[in-house]
């Protein structure tokens, strides 16, 4: 948990800086803490110092397996682009509003998406830094219409009330279960420690996560 908090305060400072600077390089804030520093280093290694902006720039993002081109200011966050913000934004039918914005500064997790297999706060990563990476949103999980184990168990256990936090929790747990199919309660708590549920449904989300883990553990079932 200490690690998690360190991770979070680190990214808040960093992101205030990058947003203020308006252009340039940014790192991903990783939800659930422990990988935060690794991932920042990685981002720098990949994107290293290339200058764009300050006006709107065209960029192509790989979202749920499809390349989409938008024109946005370099300071635009990944979550805003996904949700249809920009000078030439995603069209209303292409925009993905499943992931929400609850705080826009890395403290609620409503915006959680996966980038290259890791859960990140979509509000803490600039869209420009997601270029060339694989972005997965909650809409990308069940494209065939079949719910994943964690989605199914969230429904079974009534793991939500208003549901505004739900997509974020689903993504944090999906990232966890792709890393570890059968996590412990503590690992579940850690994985969603960057997600807030104001309606107070954590006990049910934990129950759902552990039940999904059991489904994953059972042979002949595919991952989260």
């Amino acid at each position: 948990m200490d690690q998690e908090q360190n991770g979070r305060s680190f990214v808040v400072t960093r992101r205030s800086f990058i947003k203020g600077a308006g252009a340039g390089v940014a790192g991903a804030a990783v939800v659930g803490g422990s990988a935060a520093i690794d991932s920042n280093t990685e981002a720098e290694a990949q994107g290293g110092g290339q200058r764009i902006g300050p006006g709107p720039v065209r960029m192509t993002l790989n979202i749920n397996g499809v390349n989409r081109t938008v024109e946005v200011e370099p300071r635009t966050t990944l979550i805003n682009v996904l949700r249809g913000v920009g000078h030439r934004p995603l069209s209303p039918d292409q925009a993905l509003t499943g992931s929400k914005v609850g705080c826009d500064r890395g403290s609620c997790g409503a915006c959680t998406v996966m980038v290259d297999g890791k859960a990140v706060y979509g509000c803490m990563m600039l869209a420009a830094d997601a270029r060339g990476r694989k972005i997965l949103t909650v809409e990308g999980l069940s494209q065939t219409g079949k719910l994943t184990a964690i989605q199914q168990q969230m429904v079974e256990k009534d793991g939500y009330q208003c549901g505004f936090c739900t997509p974020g929790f689903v993504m944090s747990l999906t990232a966890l279960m792709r890393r570890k199919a059968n996590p412990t309660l503590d690992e579940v708590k850690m994985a969603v420690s960057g997600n807030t549920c104001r309606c107070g449904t954590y006990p049910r989300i934990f129950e759902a996560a552990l039940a999904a883990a059991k489904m994953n553990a059972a042979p002949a079932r595919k991952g989260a």
Partner: protein
Amino acid sequence: MQQKTKKIKSVVVENGFEKEVEIEVPVGPPASWGDPKALRLLGKRNTRPDGPDKVTGRARYASDVILPGMCYGRFVMSPYPAAKIKSIDLGPAERINGVKAAVLLLQPGADVLYHGQPVAAIAAITPEIAEDAIRAVRVEYETRPHVVDLVKATNPNAPKVRSDVPSNVQYPGGSTKGDVDGALKSAAAMIHETYEAQTRLHCCLETHGHTVKWDGDKLTVWASTQFVTGVRDEFARDTGGPQNVTVITEHMGGGFGSKFGRGTEGIAVAQLAKKANAPVKFLLSRAEEQLANYRGPGVRAEIKLGASADGTLTVGDVKVWNNGGASNANSPLDQGFYIIEPQARRVQRWGVLTNTGGTAALRAPGHPQAAVIWDMALDALAAKLNMDPLEFRKKNHNDPVRVAEWDLGAKVIGWNRRQRTPGSAAGTRKRGVGMGSATWGGGGSKSADCTIEIKPDGKVRAYSAVQDLGVGVRLYVQSIPAEELGLQLADVEPIIGHSTFGPGKGSGGSTTTASVAPAIKMSAVQAREQLAIVAAKKLGAKPEEIEVVPRGRFQVKGSPARGLAWKELCALLPPSGIKAKGDWNEASDLQASGVRGCTFVEVEVDTETGKVTVIKALGVQDCGFVLNRLQAENQVTGGIIQGIGTAILEDRRMDNVTGRMLNPNFEDYKLCGSFESGGVNITLDPPYRTLGPEERGIATIIFDNPTGKVSGIGEPAIIGVQSAVANAIFNAIGVHVKEQPATPDRVLAALASLKGGRA
């Protein structure tokens, strides 16, 4: 004897034209939810129909609506807690590329009364540009002295918060019963303490706001609201009548009492959209939400409480001050006491104005504050009397349902494990057990409509303008007709959250379910009656001889072979089908007001760091007839978690020197997260067992109080939680954290006061 009949509306086809007619049907037995054991769907653990939408991201909230050419709104907010606006220049903002509209919300000469008060609003093509623009607006302020502290504001020499009222101390009130001074003198045991319940913020995860679109003089509003038709009526002021406004709330991300009106953002967004000639989305930023929106008022109370040697609560003398902020200084609960009444009592109360934001209902307005203050006082006096706090309460209160809930809660939590003498646990990590109680209305009234529509193809739709704050409204809109018509859940499509579906209902006071569910029931009953007439005609029987059996089969009582399958029956309907709208007046017996509820908590206090950990918490809640057990339990669980946050984390902090709010965010205004929330969900079924000492988690019991009537429970679920945690901490360490919440610094200060040799 002539059978009694009543008239209901129906549709018939005459000469090829559909016509609405009144038909006579026999008056059946009074409406009833039926024997819970005989029901197929109601009272069970069914999952909600919109669950898959929520887990896939398909559920659409006001903040998710995207319209071509849409702009984004932001507020210009006052950086000062008290000032006069000398001038405002929107020009520099309007000249920024991408800014489409700017409007004033206050005029030069107006007073600002709190940090964060909206002064102007901007709409731009992206939220980033809108933020540039608010920084560009030039506002000249003439600052004034301010006061943000409740106690300081009561000083006659304190700066006056508002020029239109003579004093910051408002709304004096109170009452006296019996010989208070005499009883104080003769009490065998006494406490005299001052307690403070903090000011809290609602923190709905979806902020307040709307997405709006003008078409000529017609306005469509996607609102994050807990009162669809109420918000429609407010926007109607801009459109020349409610007929020109449509409000849609398919889903909304939490309200907790703060989302009844359209708010300043609603006033702004309608103007911005008109001026920009474009749709505008104005969902507040988190900072705007925490600063400019409402809060649940903090309460301070000075309490003298006395009892006789046998534990009879003989006297209470209470002074209460309520922090009403700048715009609403309503006083707290009148009583000054909560649930348990002293024989003689005197209550004096005041609402106090401060240069802080206005207040609004926050989940059981006034109750958690009253409860935590009163419950701390009761436990302090019980300790003086050397009495078990539960026995002390039972000695002074004898409502049988409440006492049964207390006893059940005590058994399940393991009340026997509490410290007999508060603070007597060994070691540095001390365990304690505490309790708190709730009282609430939760009844309904004639308000919302429900229309049930059945088509010749057998499709059933149930419509209501009501919104769902997360309690699972769609499930009961679906399951009540399905139960009545013998259908499966999936056979009924519930459609809610649209202002055109008739009169709606504000979701406040835990009254929604008790108002809407009976309306749906009566509509379903009426639909069944209409169908019975159609079936009777076809089967050559009387309507009262028709019964409904599972799978929606209507058949003649006693000769089941004479019947119609659902599809066959519906095929006989006129092309537009039938519509049923029940009469609420026949439904009043389906709901009742007056629920109780209690919470028991076990905590561990680390006396070296001051950290409080909730080991387990149990909510026991009666709600009469249970519509959906899974969602009812979920409501209680959610109340417990919010209550734990209230008890140990949540605290709106003001800076006395600058008068600013120090924590308008989620980093410093802390909410329960995964590590604070006490662990997994523990489902308990009768006969209830005692939780093990090392068992961790949140347990909920829907207490069986077979009234046969529906009552709401969203609010009572939170009321006793802060009390229970505060008293569990007292039980663990032998001293109360009198100024709430019990953050580590305050726990350590309380422990230090103990070492310092408390009397």
